[in-house]
C-alpha cells in the first residue's frame, strides 16, 4: 500500500453464517473534488436488532477481523485484507476512519482539551500547535450552540469528561474525530437524537474549509434529512439501497 493519499477504497463484508448480510465499498476520492475530503456516514440500524449496529461499530472502531458466534466481518483496504498490512499502515488507516459512537469514553483523568489533543501528541506532534489553536477556537462554537452554558465562567475545554453531560462528552468525541480530519467519519445514530451535535461537528469541520460528502443510512429518517436539508443538501434524493452516496462541494 502506498501513502494515505492513495487510500482508494474501504470495504467491509459482514456475514451471518454463510449468508452475506451487507457489504460496503467506500471510495474517498473523486476527480470532481480537489483537496481534503470529509465523508460523514451516519447509520441507525442495520437490521431488525441493535446487535448488528453494535457489531458494525465494533468492527469500525477496532478495525479488526471480527468473528463472534456466527458473525464474521472482513475489513479490506484497497483490496487488501487489513490484517495482512504492516502494523504501521494499519495505524495510519486507523486515523483515516473515525467513529463517534454511543459507547465510547474519553480519558477521565484528563481535561477535554487534553483528550482532544491526545491523538496529535501521540501520532502527529508536528501538528499539535495548529490543532491546539483549532481546539481553542471551538469555545466560540460551543458558546454559539449554548453548550456548557450551565458552567458559565468556566472554560469548557478545561473540564474533565465526568464534569460534563453524556451528550457533551459525545460532542467532544466528535470534535476530536473531526480534528483528525479523517477520510471517513462514522456517526452512530446521528439521526436518532443527536442531530444538533452532528450539526456542530459539521460546522466545526466546515470551519476548516474542507469538502464534505455525506452518506446516509436511511433517507426515511426525517431527523437526518433535517440535518442535511438545513445545512448541506436541499435536494438530496431518497435511496433504496442501504449505503448510498452523493457528492457535493460545500
Amino acid at each position, binding site marked *: 500500500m502506498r501513502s494515505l493519499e492513495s487510500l482508494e477504497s474501504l470495504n467491509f463484508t459482514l456475514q451471518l453464517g454463510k449468508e452475506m448480510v451487507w457489504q460496503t465499498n467506500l471510495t474517498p476520492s473523486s476527480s470532481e473534488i480537489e483537496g481534503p475530503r470529509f465523508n460523514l456516514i451516519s447509520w441507525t440500524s442495520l437490521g431488525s436488532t441493535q446487535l448488528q449496529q453494535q457489531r458494525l461499530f465494533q468492527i469500525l*472502531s*477496532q478495525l479488526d477481523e471480527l468473528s463472534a458466534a456466527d458473525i464474521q466481518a472482513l475489513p479490506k483496504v484497497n483490496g487488501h485484507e487489513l490484517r495482512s498490512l504492516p*502494523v*504501521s499502515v494499519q*495505524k*495510519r488507516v*486507523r*486515523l483515516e476512519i*473515525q*467513529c463517534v459512537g454511543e*459507547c*465510547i*469514553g*474519553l*480519558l*477521565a483523568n484528563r481535561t477535554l482539551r487534553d483528550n482532544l489533543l*491526545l*491523538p496529535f*501528541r*501521540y*501520532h502527529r*506532534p508536528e501538528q499539535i500547535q495548529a490543532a491546539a489553536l483549532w481546539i481553542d477556537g471551538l469555545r466560540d462554537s460551543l458558546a454559539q450552540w449554548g453548550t456548557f452554558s450551565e458552567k458559565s465562567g468556566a472554560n469548557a475545554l478545561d473540564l474533565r469528561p465526568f464534569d460534563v453531560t453524556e451528550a457533551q462528552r459525545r460532542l467532544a*468525541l466528535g470534535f*476530536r*474525530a473531526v480534528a*483528525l480530519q479523517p477520510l471517513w467519519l462514522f456517526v452512530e445514530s446521528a439521526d436518532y437524537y443527536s442531530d444538533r451535535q452532528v450539526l456542530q461537528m459539521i460546522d466545526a469541520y466546515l470551519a476548516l474549509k474542507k469538502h464534505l460528502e455525506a452518506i446516509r443510512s436511511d433517507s426515511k429518517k426525517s431527523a437526518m434529512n433535517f440535518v442535511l436539508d438545513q445545512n448541506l443538501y436541499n435536494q438530496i434524493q431518497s435511496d433504496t439501497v442501504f449505503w448510498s452516496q452523493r457528492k457535493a462541494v460545500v
Partner: protein
Amino acid sequence: MRASIATGLIFTSRFNALWNWSSDVLQTLYLGLTSPVRLRNQGPREIVSIILQQIYFTGFQALLPICVLAFAVGGVIGFQSHMQELLFAGENWVEKVFVTVVLRELAPLLTVILVIARSCTAIAAELGSMKAHRELKGLQLIGIDLNQFIAFPRLVGGWLSLAALTIYFQFAALFGAYVVMNIGRSYSLKTLVDHIFELLRVGDLGLLLAKTTLFGLGAFAIAIQEGLSVQSSTHEVPQATIRSVVRSFVFVFIANIFLSLAFYWQTLAKVWGLQ
C-alpha cells in the same frame, strides 16, 4: 470410578484455566515490553510522561511507608541482636542477619507486598474502570496501541519504582538497626556498614536484582491483565482488584521460593548428596 472421573475433569479444567491465565499474563508482559520496538516513534513523550507518573505514584508516594516499615524491621533486628548479645554474651550477629534475612529475603518481599497493596490494586482498579467506561475503546479508536500506552509504562515505571524502593528499604532498615543498637551504648555506623560490605557477595546483588525484576514485572503484569479482564460493568472492578492482589501474592511467594532455592542450590545439592 465416577468420583475419580469427576475429580479428573475438575483437575483438567482448573489446569486449563491456570494455563490460559498464565499465557495471558505472559502475553501482556511480552507485548507490553516489546511494544516500543514494534511501534517506533509513536508518542514517545506521552509514554515517558506516563512512566514518570507511574514512578511518582508507585515509587515516590510509597517512599514514606516503605521507610517507616523498613526502619521498624531494622529496629527489631537491631534490638534482637542487642538482646542476644546481652543475654548470652554472644557475638553481635546483626550484620549476618541483615545480609541473609533483610537483603536476600525481607527487603524484596516486604517491598513488593506493599507495592502490590498500594499500586497493583490501583492499576487493576484504574484499568478495570477505564475498560468499563469504554475509555480504552476510545484510545483504540484514535490508533493508540494499548500495549504501548497502557502496559509498557506501567510495567517499566512499576519495575523501576520497586527496584528503587527495595534499595531505600535496605538503607532505612540499616538506619533502624543502627538507631536501636545505639540505645544505651555506642555502636559505630561505619563499623556496621563495613561489616555488611564484608559479608556481601556479588551473588547477593544478583539475587536482589532477580527478585525485584521478577516480582515487579510479574505483579504489574498480573495487575494489568486483571484490570483489562473487566468486560463492561463496574461491578467487575473490585472483583478484578481482589484477583490481582491474591494472584500477585501467590505468584510472588512461589517465585521467591524458587529464586531462593536457585540461590542456595549448590549448598543444598551438597547437603542432599546430589553432587
